[in-house]
């Protein structure tokens, strides 16, 4: 009995030890598992836990401003006041909106949208109740917001174009990036680009200098809970955004705005250029559009209004539009003739109002003729017969070559997209593109700026600047600390002096085509100029018989383009101005606006005043030349 019992106890003890052994094995496994997780792999889990715990919220950089040559903001950022609703902050969204509705209007559509967002978003993500509030409303709401559950007043930075339409084409605008913009941008930028409210340049300088203007996003380290709700911000472990750089243009906001207003509702462009440096002082295309409308997302009605307007407000005419230069081209032909020595300045050509070439009559714009004209008279009166004659003597090749030296057909790089090349025709071009041989008649037409030649207002401005200064200026839009005067073109001083004298006579001598202007209007300062008319439509003999004689009798879109190029002071040129009025009915539509803009420029003399860089580096301030 006792032995049996001892046997039993022994058996129990054995089995207890066996089970304990199993337990010890189990606990060893647990211990090993903990060691693996907490010691061997702990780094990995620590990182995962930090991923859980911390988020980096992108802090978007402030977009750099776009300034005029004196530092006047053309594009800056303004504070936009908005009201946000955080659904988790209120027990009933409608009650909060009702309370808010006592201080501002909230449409039913807006309410529905807020409810829809509240259902889609997580409850701690704020929903915009109202954007772009005026200060009055915002400050009222601000006062009462603490008593309205879930409502937060907020300030957001929005691009602002204080000059509105005046700079719209040059500066462009910013908009919310679309999928293409994001795909074409650097992959690292995607998070920033997808940030609500972030906008990128879509046109003009805004897109051309996007890289400089944008800056780089900063990151705000935040501690978040499992739902993504921010528990706290950790500023000392955050990275500040590097703000976008300011971009300085050569434009003068005052002259740009004046030119824009002076052109009014005409479909027209104006370019003002520093004749020695090529700095563009104004680059205007009218009518224009309000870039501020595009920032928020333009309504389809507004967009349709711009798109369907026959004056094409969305089109940057001053760099994209190309026109036959008309008689303004005669300055180039005159220079070519003098350089080539195919005519003496004193040699006269007899103008009877027309000349015959083969079986075709070529007319002077003055049907009754100019009589005997030399180079000076020919420029002054814009005699076509004289230029037919010297064009024939020159031949198309020499005209083509001289036109190229004055920038016709050259695609200028001013740093923004869309600059037109224009056309400087040659027999080779004609054969290649139209499969036609060059004829002397075509040389005649080219000699007076009609025919195939096409130039943008920008090219005409460069041409004028080169005539005025004799320097091979390149147009620039972006201001450097110092833009040195351009190299001389290499034409003889005598040639240039004679051409300039002819252009001065256009305005200041009796019989000059622009004598009626009465000069620049500044005491002691003379100007030089040249009119031009680009024919759009030939009035037919039948129409003539039906009484259509004048441009005014034609529909707007068939009227001739009016051109005027000018510079001042005539004896020591500083600024050139070109105005092209589409379907202006003749050069007279362009002369007065161009003169007024030039007068404004000379009166202000932008290049003689310290610019935006003066404060940075006084030594770079340039005096007048």
């Amino acid at each position, binding site marked *: 009995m006792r032995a049996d019992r001892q046997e039993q106890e022994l058996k129990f003890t054995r089995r207890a030890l066996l089970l304990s052994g199993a337990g010890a094995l189990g606990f060893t*496994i647990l211990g090993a598992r903990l060691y693996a997780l907490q010691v061997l792999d*702990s780094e990995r889990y620590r990182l995962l*836990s930090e991923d*859980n715990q911390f988020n980096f919220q992108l802090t978007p950089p402030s977009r750099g401003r776009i300034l005029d040559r004196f530092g006047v903001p053309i594009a800056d950022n303004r504070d936009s006041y908005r009201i946000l609703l955080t659904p988790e902050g209120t027990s009933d969204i409608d009650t909060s909106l009702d309370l808010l509705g006592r201080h501002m209007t909230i449409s039913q559509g807006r309410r529905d949208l807020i409810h829809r967002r509240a259902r889609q978003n997580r409850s701690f993500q704020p929903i915009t109740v109202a954007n772009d509030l005026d200060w009055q409303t915002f400050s009222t709401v601000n006062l009462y917001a603490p008593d309205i559950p879930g409502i937060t007043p907020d300030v957001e930075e929005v691009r602002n174009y204080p000059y509105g339409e005046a700079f719209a084409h040059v500066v462009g605008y910013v908009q919310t990036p679309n999928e293409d913009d994001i795909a074409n941008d650097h992959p690292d930028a995607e998070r920033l680009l997808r940030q609500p409210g972030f906008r990128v340049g879509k046109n003009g300088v805004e897109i051309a200098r996007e890289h400089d203007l944008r800056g780089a996003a900063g990151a705000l380290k935040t501690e978040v809970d499992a739902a993504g709700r921010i528990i706290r911000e950790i500023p000392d472990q955050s990275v500040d955004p590097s703000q976008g750089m300011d971009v300085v243009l050569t434009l003068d906001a005052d002259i740009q705005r004046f030119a824009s207003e002076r052109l009014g509702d005409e479909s027209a462009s104006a370019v003002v250029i520093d004749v020695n440096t090529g700095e563009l002082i104004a680059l205007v295309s009218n009518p224009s559009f309000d870039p501020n409308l595009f920032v928020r997302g333009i309504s389809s009605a507004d967009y349709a209004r711009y798109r369907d307007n026959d004056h094409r407000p969305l089109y940057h005419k001053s760099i994209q539009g190309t026109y036959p230069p008309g008689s303004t081209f005669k300055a180039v032909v005159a220079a070519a003739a003098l350089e080539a020595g195919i005519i003496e300045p004193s040699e006269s050509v007899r103008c009877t109002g027309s000349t015959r070439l083969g079986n075709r009559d070529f007319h002077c714009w003055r049907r009754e003729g100019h009589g005997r004209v030399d180079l000076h008279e020919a420029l002054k009166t814009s005699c076509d017969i004289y230029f037919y004659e010297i064009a024939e003597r020159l031949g198309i090749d020499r005209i083509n070559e001289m036109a190229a030296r004055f920038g016709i057909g050259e695609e200028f790089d001013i740093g923004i997209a869309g600059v037109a090349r224009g056309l400087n025709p040659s027999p080779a071009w004609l054969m290649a593109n139209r499969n036609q041989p060059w004829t002397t008649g075509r040389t005649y037409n080219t000699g007076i700026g009609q025919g195939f030649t096409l130039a943008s207002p920008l090219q005409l401005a460069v041409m004028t600047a080169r005539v005025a200064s004799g320097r091979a200026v390149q147009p620039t839009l972006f201001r450097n600390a110092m833009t040195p005067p351009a190299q001389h073109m290499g034409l003889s001083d005598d040639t240039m002096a004679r051409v300039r004298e002819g252009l001065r006579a256009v305005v200041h001598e009796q019989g000059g085509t622009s004598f009626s202007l009465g000069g620049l209007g500044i005491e002691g300062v003379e100007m030089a100029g040249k009119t031009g008319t680009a024919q759009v439509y030939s009035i037919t003999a039948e129409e003539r018989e039906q009484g259509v004689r004048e441009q005014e009798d034609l529909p707007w879109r068939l009227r001739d383009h009016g051109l005027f190029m000018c510079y001042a002071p005539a004896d020591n040129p500083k600024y050139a101005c070109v105005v092209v009025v589409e379907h202006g009915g003749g050069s007279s539509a362009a002369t007065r606006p161009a003169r007024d803009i030039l007068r404004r420029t000379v009166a202000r003399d932008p290049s003689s005043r310290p610019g935006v860089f003066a404060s940075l580096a006084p030594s770079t301030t340039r005096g007048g030349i």
Partner: protein
Amino acid sequence: MAVFRETVPRDLPGKMMEINWSLVLLLGLLGVAGVAMLYSLAGAEWNPWAVRHALRLGVGFTGMLIVAMFPPRFWIGVAYPIYFGALLLLVLVEFAGVSINGAQRWIDLGPLRLQPSEVMKVALVLALARFYHDLPTEKVTSLSGLIPPMMIIGAPAALIIGQPDLGTTLLLIATGLAVIFMAGLSWWFILIVGVLGLMGVVGIAVVGLENILAEYQMDRVRAFTNPDFDPLGINYHPNQAVITLGSGGMTGKGYLEGTQSKLGFLPEMQTDYIFTALGEEFGFVGGISVLAINALIMAQGVGVAVSCKSPFLRLLTMGLITTYALYVFINIGMVSRLMPVVGVPLPLISYGGTVVLSILVAFGLILGAHIHRNAEPPRGVGLFG
């Protein structure tokens, strides 16, 4: 020859003297760790958990010491009534139970919510110990020593698996089998059970696990075998649990400094996943300490079991220690992703009333067994003797 007579203390002071205070201390350490973690999890607040947990521990420890005072004769007497009472509660819970997470587990008794399956964990061991205590030694290895215990285990297991609560069912079966094994089951039977078990595994493989388990249980198995399965759904918590544990590193993030636990990456942190919070704040050092305390508790328990004279106390102690060990192993194994998600709390540390009480009652019985280790209650005294 003077035989040193081993005595059984009969009066209260004598029994108090015999209390295994080192075991009480070890249990107390776990209780303190529980209160400390619950305080931390509430964001250094006593409410809502820490204060109530401390209160329950107080009640539980007192109850434990009271339970320890009762002689084995008493427990032998009430073993079957308690077992059948618990079985009745399990039947009742089918009709009057409160459903939590789709499983009926609670009976609402006004101020007290009773979890009959918790009661059954103790009752089952009591009933089995009583059965073998009465069984003549020679019959232990016979079939008549096997069939009734199987029924004693099978009845509650069938009821609990219907709740459904697979974790508790497996725990009960494992505990019951351990007791049968300890009672001296013939190795032949063990071999047969092993073969049957193997056949069962083959059978499951043939039928397919998905035809046996409920869909939510099946998903847990899928989630366990593949951490990338439904990572934001069913696998979110197991994966976050591992991150929480692992991010603690060697020495932890510091008390009250846990981030995973505080920022809501694991809900119900205060119950089944509390060990991860402890591992996060105290690291490997803290985790291994909890394991070590538990190992010491079990060693103490096994020591008590071996020292007992009566088969009843031996089997009772071993059975309860096995249940306890399974709790600890399943819980820590689950939160460290060693096994699929099974809803088992960590004894004395996890928040939850019934579990604290049932565990401490179990340790009351073990302490009682230690006090009365030399007692030799009569065997075969009848059903309610």
